[in-house]
């Protein structure tokens, strides 16, 4: 059967939208990111424990003392494991996305309930929104909305809307037809029937839908952390890609705590706002007046408590905070005058090292560099649209060849700062008599018939599949597994601990070589090609917008020794303190900053 070019059509459509509706998408971006910034500023302002207290009062109002206590403990735990800022950023994303979703979903659900035809037309659309794998639209979302929070929020809205629409429709359809008829029979106009009879009676079901919306939003927001959405998603993503199980768990448990808090609170809110739920609540309370655990402050008391705590929080912030101002620079060093440079990074160690090194250097030159951690596809897409200015981790000409081909028109190459690199398959050194790819032949039993691969889209994987394995006659004998870098490294760790033979897809430079005793298998036939060099790429307009920074970056070089030392220093400083590691390392490199970013005529 002939291939149907469905994908091509979609791509054409996406290009058309991008070319002709960009102002529209820019408008959405502005509004949504404005909402996010506002909410995040509010949630991020107070002292963590004070905000935890405010949230605990909300829990007290909605569910009583026990819930308040558990909420406070859970939120304090988030702060305790150092995930507070990320958690608040995630919470802001969830709130913004959920509010927009509910504002869209409830009217749609009402419409669907009142018109069978609309309901029937919406159903397949909702199915599509709910089941289309999120990455399919998460990455293209960057075309339209740029990297950062907005594409994540949009994807979250898409993903979490269906239950909101469905439950609203269901709730309204479930309202006893005789009640609607009774309203009509007494001359109620359709709109008032909707507002006065159908919606109040459908409210418990609608609130169950809202609860679902929020929970789905949370799960999606975490996923969108991978494309630069930030928050706990980014924490978890970073941690697992460095096989930092402990940190991954800390981020994960923060997600769980947020999820449980949001779930219980919206569930209870559902009972608060619906007239029938309020009655049931009142009845429960009068039935068991004595129990302390049933205590609920009245809405007014809870409101006052929240306001008081918020005022205290605001006050503390006002008196305590001058954190945002830049340290004064020596005269003549302020080249950037606070201009923002968006640096993208894909979380490979050498990239992280170079990125934070430049972040430090640019800060010393008066710029405000912002580092965004993202998926490689998102990085190139973002940079091609100019939402990311520059990145320091492009492996060319081989590994990132596909991206370079696709986006070269809108990018510029600022040259390579490290190289050559190499791609290879490696085995632990305790595996005897395997030194070259050719030695793997006939030993597939030992290795379980597998070579542990990384992301299927990685350039090295493509090369292995198309050329290398065949060239050494390994393609029949070994299966190249696909997965993730984190998965590969986890398997490597496991095998090394058990002293089992394992063959993994790796590349140099990589910290795994310093952590484990490994043998890089030789490639006598040269099928991996000449090693890539690591390039600095920027958006086409970067050299004209930042001429000085472009010049500096063009002159940037690191030796293997320097890179190793820098990576080690960053590793020692620990996650979240990359820049401290950079500063420590810079002390051992006197004059490096001035060589990287020479001032004026000097």
């Amino acid at each position, binding site marked *: 059967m002939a291939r149907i070019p469905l994908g091509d059509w979609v791509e054409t459509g996406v290009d058309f939208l991008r070319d002709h509706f960009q102002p529209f998408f820019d408008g959405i971006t502005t509004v949504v990111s404005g909402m996010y910034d506002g909410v995040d500023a509010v949630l991020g302002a107070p002292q963590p424990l004070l905000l935890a207290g405010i949230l605990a009062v909300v829990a007290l109002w909605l569910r009583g003392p026990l819930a308040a206590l558990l909420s406070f403990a859970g939120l304090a735990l988030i702060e305790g494991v150092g995930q507070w800022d990320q958690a608040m950023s995630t919470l802001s994303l969830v709130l913004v996305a959920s509010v927009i979703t509910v504002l869209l979903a409830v009217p749609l659900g009402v419409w669907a309930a009142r018109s069978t035809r609309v309901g029937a037309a919406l159903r397949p659309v909702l199915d599509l929104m709910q089941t289309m794998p999120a990455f399919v639209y998460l990455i293209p979302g960057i075309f339209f909305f740029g990297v950062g929070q907005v594409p994540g929020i949009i994807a979250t809205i898409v993903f979490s809307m269906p239950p909101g629409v469905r439950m609203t429709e269901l709730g309204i359809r479930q309202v*006893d037809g*005789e*009640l609607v008829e*009774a309203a009509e029979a*007494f*001359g109620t106009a359709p709109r008032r029937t909707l507002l006065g009879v159908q919606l109040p*009676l459908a409210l418990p079901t609608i609130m169950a839908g809202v609860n679902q919306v929020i929970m789905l939003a949370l799960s999606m927001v975490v996923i969108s952390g991978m494309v630069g959405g930030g928050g706990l998603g980014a924490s978890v993503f970073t941690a697992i890609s460095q096989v930092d199980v402990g940190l991954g768990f800390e981020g994960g448990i923060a997600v769980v705590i947020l999820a449980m808090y949001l779930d219980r609170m919206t569930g209870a809110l559902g009972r608060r706002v*619906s*007239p029938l739920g309020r009655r049931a609540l009142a009845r429960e309370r009068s039935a068991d007046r004595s129990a302390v655990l049933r205590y609920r402050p009245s809405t007014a008391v809870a409101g006052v408590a929240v306001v008081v705590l918020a005022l205290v929080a605001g006050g503390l912030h006002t008196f305590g905070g001058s954190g945002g101002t830049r340290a004064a620079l020596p005269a003549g060093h302020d080249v950037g005058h606070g201009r923002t440079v968006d640096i993208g990074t894909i979380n490979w160690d050498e990239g992280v090292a170079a990125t934070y090194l430049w972040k430090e250097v640019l800060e010393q030159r008066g710029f405000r560099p912002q580092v965004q951690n993202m998926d490689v596809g998102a990085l190139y897409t973002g940079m091609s649209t100019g939402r990311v200015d520059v990145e320091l981790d492009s492996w060319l000409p081989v590994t990132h060849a596909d991206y370079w081909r696709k986006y070269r028109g809108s990018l510029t190459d600022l040259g390579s700062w490290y190289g050559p690199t190499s791609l290879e398959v490696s085995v632990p050194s305790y595996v005897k008599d395997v030194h070259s790819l050719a030695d793997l032949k006939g030993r597939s039993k030992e290795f379980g018939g597998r070579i542990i691969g990384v992301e299927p889209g990685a350039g090295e994987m493509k090369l292995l599949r198309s050329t290398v394995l065949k060239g050494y006659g390994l393609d029949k004998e070994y299966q190249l597994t696909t997965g993730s870098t984190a998965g590969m490294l986890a398997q490597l760790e496991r095998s090394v601990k058990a002293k089992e033979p394992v063959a993994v897809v790796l590349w140099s430079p990589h910290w795994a070589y310093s952590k484990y005793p490994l043998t890089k298998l030789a490639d006598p036939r040269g099928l991996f090609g000449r090693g890539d060099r690591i390039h600095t790429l920027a958006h086409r307009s970067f050299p004209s917008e930042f001429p000085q920074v472009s010049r500096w970056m063009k002159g940037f070089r690191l030796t293997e020794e320097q890179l190793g030392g820098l990576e080690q220093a960053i590793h020692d400083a620990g996650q979240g303190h990359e820049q401290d590691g950079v500063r420590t390392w810079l002390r051992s490199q006197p004059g490096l900053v001035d060589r990287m970013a020479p001032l004026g005529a000097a």
Partner: protein
Amino acid sequence: MSLLEADHLFKVFGKHPDDAVERLRSGAGREELREDGATAAVVDACFEVGEGEIFVIMGLSGSGKSTLLRMLNGLAEPTAGRVLFDGQELTALNGRELRSVRSHRISMVFQHFALFPHRTVLENAGYGLEQQGVDRGERDRRAAEALELVGLGEWKDSWPDELSGGMQQRVGLARALATDADLLLMDESFSALDPLIRREMQEQLLQLQQQLRKSIVFITHDLNEAMRLGDRIAVMRDGRIVQQGTPAEIVLAPADDYVAAFVEDVDRDRVLGRAAVRPGGPGADRGAAGEVPQQAPRDAAAGGKAVNRG
């Protein structure tokens, strides 16, 4: 003069309803239409309801009586024919005018009470007044009065689900009475109640009627209920009214075998005893069996029959 008149009403569901009406007019049966995908719910219904009269429409389920009732206040739009209410053609009104008539002059009592669960008893009773735009104080006062009338004055702050079925339906009745409508449509209003309560409610309705003198169209499938309540009764079968007349007329001179079989078990003494005190007597103005006389309501009859019932 009659308050309400149904003038050759038709209601057809399904495909090509207008063609179906034409065919029904030229004598086609329900089955023929059903083969073509149309369902005739009401066929050529004509009757009048006088002021202060209880007019019962009786038939088995599926006979079209509920659809007929809903055409009387415009909840269902007739496929053909007219509804005249107090000289006004309801079928010609637009949505807003129709809603105004419904909120001020025609109210309805439902089979399963249809009380709003999120409103208190008082708020339920005041619902119609709220739709009329009556302000809160006035509304609560009149709703409370209506509740007193049905004997639920003390329950106004309760919630519907705290009341028994019979009490709930009395709230439904209070809601319908509170608006001071001229016409009450009662759709199998007592059918969901158990027999003892049903009997009580019937008595209460008759007592109230003595006092209020509303025009009532009452739908039921229960012949005894029809005989007990109705000043006049219309018997429906397969969407058509097969006979209408006073209870005595229906019992003494059934129009066809169907009606005859229907009334076989009815308590004749009771019906006839009641009928005997009516001036004019039963059957005096009747034509041949099967013809349906259009009787004007007899105001004079009301006093006599009430005595008899009490």
